[in-house]
């Protein structure tokens, strides 16, 4: 087939091959749709393209550190905890893809097949109606057009395929899922769980829920994946497929159907809207290498470029009908962006349990406390609340004082175990606001002729109050548990470093105040769907990827039905 329009026409186009795009690809291909998956970066094949995955610590030239000149030239990405020598090749460097920070915002990105699903932190919790009903109850953003019952079966659907480990805790605010066995808690984590349960009504410490195959099922074996070995080197890509990333799961699954055309190095410039037909007809792509402009066509388009790149593409999709960006009649495209507040941490020491410790693998999760603040009713001077991690462990120590024979003997000796150290990180809900927004620069363009994204996102008073409350509540709980040397720290990090970028193309019931309907379709352009972080009306506190996956699977299956019925 030559380069005819027909050869560039598919049943569906998916923009992005990461966490959510992979799911759209899988669902479409399984349902028999010829699907084009556009990825702006290079291809990353499972195992084959994980160059550092089996490297030993001494094989890294700088023992994991990033050279100074790279850090200096790339201050944003250098702030990311996972941007280390072993995984730096999966992150976008500031110098390669500039953007404009009207306010400081650390835009952490991964441009390759699999996107950030290669390096994500793999924590997966369901939303409940305490989350979906938040905006309506507390009077911010707009009401979500969906509730837990709409998404619950799709959570189950993606959990079974992805493989989620966890414990059935029976909590109303954090619904149970389709769990593989949980990863054990340490002695002091169990102890804290008991202290909290006994002394703080309505608060729970639970096993971390994460996308790790603690006990693979047939469906995971069919994907060619094996049991998680607790290497905790996930950011390099896992040779066992022990955690969920698109490269080991959704993308090869889609490929296997024979229905997927994966096109790496495809920078999406915009979505093509046909004024005569009154709908989107395709996508304009710039080849990343040749800079050639190519058009691809399909009756349905899923935008899964990663929340803020999704905003960028839509803002840049200008037509006679939509001069301000696709679907943007109400002027709110790019607005009400939000994130998670990850600034606050607390740590302490515990002298109890001197005779016990943990051993074996490096556990890739921690304990977790779901949101307890303002859950049933408003009870503080700030809206919403925070979830948090809790981890407790002991570190082996060798005395490194002095020099010479003494020092050497100490280094070669059996290490002694230090006391238990405990720590928690706050994961706070932020309130989407019109003043937190994304826009395009009027003049500056990148190397592919796409306008640069301007990011205008900041914390507010609600966030500051929440941090204060987190410190107070945690100090109280830690003190009750007998932890000592309690230290709080506010990193003051800019928004974005949480890597939970959300909003800008929010869902809602009313076309006047939202962009997408309950099926993730544009209210006014029904064959374009947004199912990545951009669609989020509010953020709640959960790590969002699982929700993006479930939303994508749900919307893709709806789109297939609608296509079959000729509705789109």
């Amino acid at each position: 087939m030559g380069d005819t329009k027909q050869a560039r026409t598919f049943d569906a186009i998916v923009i992005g091959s990461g966490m959510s795009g992979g799911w759209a690809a899988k669902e479409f291909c399984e349902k028999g749709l010829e699907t084009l998956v556009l990825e702006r970066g290079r291809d990353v094949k499972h195992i084959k393209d994980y160059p550092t995955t089996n490297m030993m610590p001494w094989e890294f030239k700088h023992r994991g550190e990033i050279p100074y000149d790279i850090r200096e030239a790339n201050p944003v990405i250098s702030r990311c905890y996972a941007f280390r020598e072993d995984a730096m090749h999966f992150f976008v460097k500031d110098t390669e893809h500039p953007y404009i920070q009207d306010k400081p915002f650390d835009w952490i990105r991964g441009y390759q097949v699999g996107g950030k699903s290669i390096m994500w932190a793999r924590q997966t919790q369901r939303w409940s109606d305490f989350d979906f009903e938040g905006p309506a109850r507390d009077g911010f953003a707009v009401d979500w057009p969906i509730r837990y019952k709409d998404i619950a079966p799709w959570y189950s659907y993606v959990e079974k395929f992805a493989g989620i480990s966890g414990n059935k805790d029976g909590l109303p605010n954090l619904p149970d899922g389709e769990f593989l066995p949980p990863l054990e808690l340490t002695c002091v984590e169990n102890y804290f769980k008991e202290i909290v349960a006994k002394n703080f009504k309505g608060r729970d410490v639970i096993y971390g829920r994460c996308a790790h195959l603690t006990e693979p099922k047939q469906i995971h074996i069919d994907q060619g994946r094996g049991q998680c070995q607790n290497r905790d080197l996930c950011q390099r890509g896992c040779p066992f497929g022990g955690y969920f990333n698109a490269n080991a799961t959704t993308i090869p699954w889609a490929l296997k159907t024979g229905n997927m055309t994966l096109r790496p190095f495809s920078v999406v410039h915009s979505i093509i809207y046909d004024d005569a037909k009154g709908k989107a007809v395709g996508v304009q792509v710039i080849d990343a290498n040749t800079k050639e402009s190519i058009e691809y066509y399909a009756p349905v388009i899923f935008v899964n470029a990663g929340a803020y790149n999704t905003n960028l593409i839509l803002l840049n999709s200008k037509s006679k009908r939509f001069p301000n960006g696709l679907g943007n009649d109400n002027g709110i495209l790019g607005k009400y962006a939000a994130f998670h507040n990850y600034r606050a941490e607390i740590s302490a020491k515990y002298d109890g349990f001197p005779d016990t410790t943990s051993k074996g693998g490096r556990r890739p999760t921690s304990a977790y406390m779901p949101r307890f603040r303002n859950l049933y009713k408003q009870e503080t001077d700030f809206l919403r609340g925070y979830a948090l991690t809790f981890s407790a462990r002991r570190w082996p120590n060798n005395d490194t004082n002095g020099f010479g024979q003494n020092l050497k003997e100490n280094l070669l000796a059996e290490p002694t175990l230090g006391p238990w150290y405990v720590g928690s990180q706050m994961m706070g809900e932020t309130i989407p606001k019109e003043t937190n927004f994304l826009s395009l620069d009027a003049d500056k363009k990148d190397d592919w002729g796409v306008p640069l994204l301007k990011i205008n996102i900041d914390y507010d008073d609600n966030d500051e109050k929440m941090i204060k409350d987190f410190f107070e509540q945690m100090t109280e709980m830690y003190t009750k548990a007998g932890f000592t040397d309690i230290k709080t720290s506010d990193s003051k990090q800019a928004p974005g470093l949480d890597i939970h970028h959300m909003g800008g193309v929010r869902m809602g019931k009313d076309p006047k105040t939202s962009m997408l309907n309950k099926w993730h379709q544009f209210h006014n352009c029904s064959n374009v769907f947004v199912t990545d972080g951009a669609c989020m009306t509010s953020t709640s506190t959960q790590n969002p990827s699982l929700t993006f996956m479930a939303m994508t699977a749900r919307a893709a299956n709806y789109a297939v039905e609608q296509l079959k019925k000729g509705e789109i």
Partner: protein
Amino acid sequence: MNRRSTLKTLLIISTGAALLPSCLPDEKKSSISLKNIKINGKDEELLSDLSETIIPKTNTPGAKDVSAHLFTLMMIDYCYAPADQDKFVKGLKEFEDFSKKKFDKSFLRCFASERAEILKSIESKKDIPENVAFFYNTTKRLVLQAFTKSKYYLTKVQVYELVPGKFYGCVPVKKAS
């Protein structure tokens, strides 16, 4: 190559060889290529002997065996800020001055007991020039890192498991090792 030029080359080499002993310390280059810091062969030797004083070879490998001094240089050169690189190089020279002041000779020519005394006085933190302290502390930290993250250490002393398998959350300490 014709005979005449061969002879000429030989002449130059022998002349050079004759001059060599007097300028050897400055002429000898560092054995690894460094892009930012200026370190000569003698500096490298000093760093090597210092690292070996910190972690000596006994019946098991020491700092030199795991190339801790070269790792130190490479890390300073690649991963440190220019201001710290500067401090390190200055500190290295001042460390020599410190040795000369104390024992009237280079650290390289000091006996083991003298070397130990130099390190002891630096570790005492009493009246130590800032650059010397920075040089010593940085070197010690990097030598420790080189040693405890070396193949030797992670395969023979505290074995690093690339594939550790099951995680046990709560076990008695005596069963943990």
